[in-house]
Structure formats: structure tokens, C-alpha cells
């Protein structure tokens, strides 16, 4: 049974200024499912709609972002939530932080710079769960920090006293306070160095293995997906290009965009020429007709210019949206 079921989701940014209206189709017809106990990776370049997708599925839709159509449904065990129609009060009291939590890119902005870490813990706990006395709360916080392998001293430090990696790990600890069913990690290691990145990702993997929940890992770094994710979705210009288990994405990708992404990754010990992709990412306010990748695709056909490719299932858990694949497959 799936934890999250997103069906045909369209979310646009609609602005109207001085009589000029503009629509940015950031998420356009996206369907996918998340299952319990997996790490699901979302990859794509900047401005391909990754962050918008997260905003919608975490119930964070604010003007000018509007959900045009589609559905976002969760099933936390017996508790079913329709994310697009839930009341703000219910979202705050029983979903946020308890069932869905969020780890952001810049952990410096999550933690209040003038308060000790323990105070931030206190803030979160008191808004979502009432502890009767302070002692009980402190014990809970310490035990949780210990369980995840951080020194308890961090609780009494200010954010600036910790290194970037430690801060990011504190942000992850905060996100897992209530053992949520889904942890959304948006570029959690982008600002970090390789060694620290490895430490932080190991922690995310450990937590996932310990509590068998679901992690939605969003990053543009394919090498991270290769080592962490179980399944990977490749987004391009607001749509899903391909979705498959990690091994298939890396060893037998079908979509030309995925193929190029994988081929162009530099590796230590291998120095063959790697080419960039011609053209530049499309403007989502005025996306190309048909397949949105057609302007940059090395294998473009006539049909790609006019018709939007439909998502077809080509193997177990492997879906692709490409006319060429469809032609070869059928």
C-alpha cells in the first residue's frame, strides 16, 4: 500500500501585475507514488519544478502558487489525509512534524542564531506536543540526540559554534523528533564538503533503516542518488522524464535526457571526453510545445515537436515519457 499517491498534479505560479498575467507551469501533470520504507530520489536541474513539487506535497501552497488540478493523498497507517483539502489547524496539529517533516538546504536558516539549540527544540516540541514538565522534555531531547550519535553538548551551543555539517545534522535530528512517516530532504548536502556530505547522508540512511520510514531526497547531484536512493525520479521542465530503481537509472536509462545526464558525469580514474548538453533549460513561463526536451534532444523526431509524450511503463517500477522509447518498445 502506498504512503503517498500523487495523481496528475498541475501546480502553476500565476501572477498578475499591471494587467500583465504570467503563468509559470512549474509542475505539469506529475503522477507518482511513495511507499513505506524506501528512499526516493528526485533529480533535476535548477528550475525544473523540484521545489514546487515539494511545496505542494507538504501542504505549503501559497500565493502565487496555485494547484490547478490533480490530487495528493496520504495514508499514514489508518489515518488518511487529502493534502489539497486539509484544514490548516489539522495540518499543524497532526500532520506537520508528526507525519511529515522537512530538512532544508541551509540549516543556518532553520536554527535561530541568537538562541541555543535546546531552545529551538523546545519551540518545536511545545507547538506540536505538550510536555507536562521540563525535565521530561529535556530527557526526551537528550535521548533522541544520543540515539542519533551526536554529542549532547550540541544542545547547549549556539548555531554559529557548530560546523556546517554538525548544524545540518542537528536540523535532521530536529526533523526526526516525532518519528515521522515521511522525511522530505531538500538538497540537504549541497552546501557541504564531500567528507561532511558523506557523514550527513550516512545519518539519513541510518535513520531510515532504524525507523523504516520514507525519505524523499531531492538533489541535483546524481552521484548522491547513486549511493543513497532506492528509486530515482528524473524531472525535466516540470514533468517526469523517467522513474526507475537506482540500478536501472544508472545502468540502463532509456530517456535521452537521463542518458546524457549519466554519461556526462565525471569520474575519478576515467578521462574520456564528456560533452555538455546544447541549449539551455527551458523557460517554464513559455515552455516548448510537445516534449519539453525536444529543443535539446539529440534524437528528436517530428512527433516530439507537437505531441506531449505519455508516461509508459516499460518494466517493473520503470516508467518513461519519450516518443522514441514508446516506438521501440511497442
Amino acid at each position: 500500500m502506498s504512503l503517498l499517491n500523487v495523481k496528475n498534479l498541475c501546480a502553476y505560479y500565476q501572477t498578475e501585475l499591471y494587467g500583465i498575467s504570467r503563468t509559470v507551469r512549474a509542475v505539469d501533470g506529475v503522477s507518482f507514488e511513495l511507499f513505506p520504507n524506501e528512499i526516493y530520489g528526485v533529480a533535476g536541474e535548477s528550475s525544473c519544478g523540484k521545489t514546487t513539487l515539494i511545496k505542494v506535497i507538504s501542504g505549503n501552497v501559497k500565493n502565487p502558487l496555485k494547484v490547478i488540478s490533480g490530487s495528493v493523498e496520504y495514508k499514514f497507517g489508518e489515518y488518511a489525509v487529502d493534502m489539497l483539502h486539509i484544514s490548516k489547524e489539522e495540518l499543524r496539529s497532526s500532520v506537520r512534524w508528526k507525519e511529515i517533516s522537512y530538512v532544508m538546504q541551509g540549516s543556518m536558516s532553520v536554527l535561530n542564531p541568537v538562541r541555543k539549540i535546546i531552545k529551538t527544540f523546545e519551540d518545536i516540541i511545545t507547538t506540536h506536543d505538550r510536555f507536562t514538565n521540563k525535565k521530561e522534555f529535556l530527557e526526551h531531547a537528550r535521548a533522541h540526540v544520543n540515539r542519533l550519535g551526536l554529542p549532547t553538548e550540541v544542545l547547549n551551543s549556539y548555531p554559529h559554534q557548530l560546523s556546517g555539517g554538525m548544524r545540518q545534522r542537528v536540523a535532521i535530528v530536529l526533523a526526526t523528533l516525532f518519528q515521522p512517516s515521511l522525511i522530505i530532504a531538500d538538497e540537504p548536502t549541497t552546501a557541504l564538503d564531500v567528507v561532511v556530505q558523506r557523514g550527513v547522508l550516512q545519518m539519513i540512511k541510518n535513520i531510515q533503516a532504524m525507523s523504516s520510514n520514507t525519505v524523499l531526497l531531492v538533489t541535483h547531484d546524481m552521484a548522491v542518488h547513486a549511493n543513497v536512493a532506492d528509486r530515482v525520479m528524473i524531472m525535466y521542465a516540470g514533468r517526469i522524464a523517467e522513474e526507475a530503481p537506482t540500478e536501472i537509472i544508472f545502468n540502463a536509462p532509456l530517456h535521452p535526457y537521463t542518458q546524457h545526464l549519466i554519461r556526462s558525469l565525471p569520474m575519478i580514474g576515467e578521462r574520456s571526453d564528456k560533452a555538455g548538453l546544447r541549449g539551455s533549460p527551458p523557460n517554464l513561463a513559455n515552455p516548448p510545445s510537445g516534449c519539453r526536451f525536444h529543443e535539446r534532444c539529440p534524437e528528436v523526431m517530428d512527433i516530439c515537436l507537437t505531441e506531449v509524450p505519455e508516461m509508459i511503463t516499460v518494466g517493473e517500477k520503470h516508467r518513461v515519457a519519450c516518443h522514441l522509447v514508446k516506438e521501440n518498445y511497442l
Partner: protein
Amino acid sequence: MSDTEKLLDVQHVTVEFHIGGLLGGSLLVAVNDISFSLDKDRPEIFTLAGESGSGKTTLSRLFLRDLEPTRGKVLFEGRDLATIRKRSEFKEFMKKVQPVFQNPFETFSPLRRVDAYLFDTALNFKMARNRRDAILVVDEALRSVGLSLEEVSRRYPHELSGGQTQRVSVARALISQPKLILADEPVSMVDASLRMEIVNLFRELRDKQKVSVIYITHDLATAYYISDRIGIMLRGFIVESGPVEDVLEQPFHPYTKLLKESVPEPNPKDRETWAKHISLGTTEVKEYSQVGCKFASRCPQVMDICREVDPPDVQIERRVVKCYLYMENTGQ
């Protein structure tokens, strides 16, 4: 080899910063006794790699004469940068050494058209007498990065993609026909599909225009792809340096080994070993003020002496390693 054959010669430079109060406080050695050189007639791409806070950027500021070393000398074409005093001399120097920065959208003001920067540079460095002559100079620079004046003229930074803006940034640096380009994390803000384009551009500059490049990065995979030599930095020291194939394919220093292991391979087959647990460093300041080898607190092969005295530079074949483990090889 005499000094005149060197393009850039860095001799035992040290940079110290005083941190803390006016009276108290402590000394932070951001760059610690670093020496290396680039040859004049053999253009190459030299990579400085290391985690953030390892002193890469401080070191590169010395080469732009943005900062003066506390001790040691930086010679460019045989001339000590500290002796450049006159404005005209400094301009001559700037012509030959040009920077390319990390974020292409911060390099250019969003309110100014990007070609204005190119024309300003051409006129400032007297590469053209007037604006009409400058058109040729600017167009030529843009063509060498795969763009043309037609494409970028009258455009604002937001009208170009990240990759294009970064290429304009490289074109700007090329206008004065420099001998050395200093690229500080030039691809870390560029999208994956456009990244290789920029990286390939640096290779092309080296091969066709004979420009040397100092490439500063924390991304070892692109460093391996483009560079000839590499220096791995840790807390102000270069702990290992040499040809990039030697250093990255078979690292000697325990820190380089850890770095290489930590680079995630874009291949799911190694995920089990990559997930092996590692210990992370303490805060930056703690590691900087540590006596002896800065890696001692994290090193799996640490010895007593490592915590007492700075390790020596040991020459092994084509590379230099700063580690006690390799002392026997020198016959000492």
C-alpha cells in the same frame, strides 16, 4: 631553473589572521608555508582542492595581490608581488592575471547589461582605443568561449542561462589576454547539463590559447577530469601534491584517501562501501589551532609524533606528501 622561467612562483607563503579581541584572541594560520610554481612555457591546469575552510580562497587572494602574505613571497614572472606599488604597474599585473568567480549571477549586477562589463574591461585595460574598436576585441573574446557579441549584446544577466553567464564571465577575463586565470569554484553554481561545457572550456583555453589556470574546487571528479597537477589542502597546508593521476588514483596521504573515498561515485555498485561509517572533524577553529598534523584527530594511522610537530614534506617519485608515514622513503 632560474626565476624568469616561472610564470608563478609561490615561495613559503604564510598568512596569519588574528581572531578574537584586540588584546586577547588567537592566531589563525590560514595558509601555512606553501610553495609551488607554474612553468611559463608549459601552460597547465593546477587544481587546489580541499574542504571549505582549508585556505583555498585565502591562498588564491594572494595571487591576485588582494592580500599580502605574512611571510614568504609570491613571484609572478620573476617579480615579487609585494614590490608592485604604482597603479600603472598594478594594472599591468592585473592584465596578466584574471579571476573567474563562483556564482555567475553575483559576478554581474542584475541592473546592468552584461556586455557593458566586457566593453569596460576592454577600455580599462586599453585593449581598444574606443568603443568601436572594442567591439572587435569583445567579440573575439566571446567567440573563444563559444558565444558571440550578437547573442549577448543588450542582455541582462537573468536573460542568459547560468552556463552562458559563466561563459561571459570567462570571456571577460580573457579580454586582457591574461597568462593566468584564477577560477574559484567556477562550476559549483552551474547546472549539471551545462557544467561540462564550462569545464571543457578551461581545457580548451589551456590547449589553444596557452593560458594557465589555477582551478579551485572541492569537486575532485571535475578536478581529475581537467587538471594536470593537483594540490590537496587541509587547514592551511598542502598535504599532498603532484600529477593528478598519481594523487587521485592512488592517494598516499590518509586525508587524500578519505577525500577520495568520500566522493560519491555515480554508480550504484559501490554504495555499500560508501556507507561505511566515518568520523567527522570538530569545528574549524579547533583543527586550525591543533599542534602538529591537522589531520591527527581524525587519522586512522595516527602516531604520537603527529600531535607534536608539523610533519615534513616527503618527496615520493613525482609527488610531495606531508606525512610521517612516508619518512623512511627519504632515507632519513
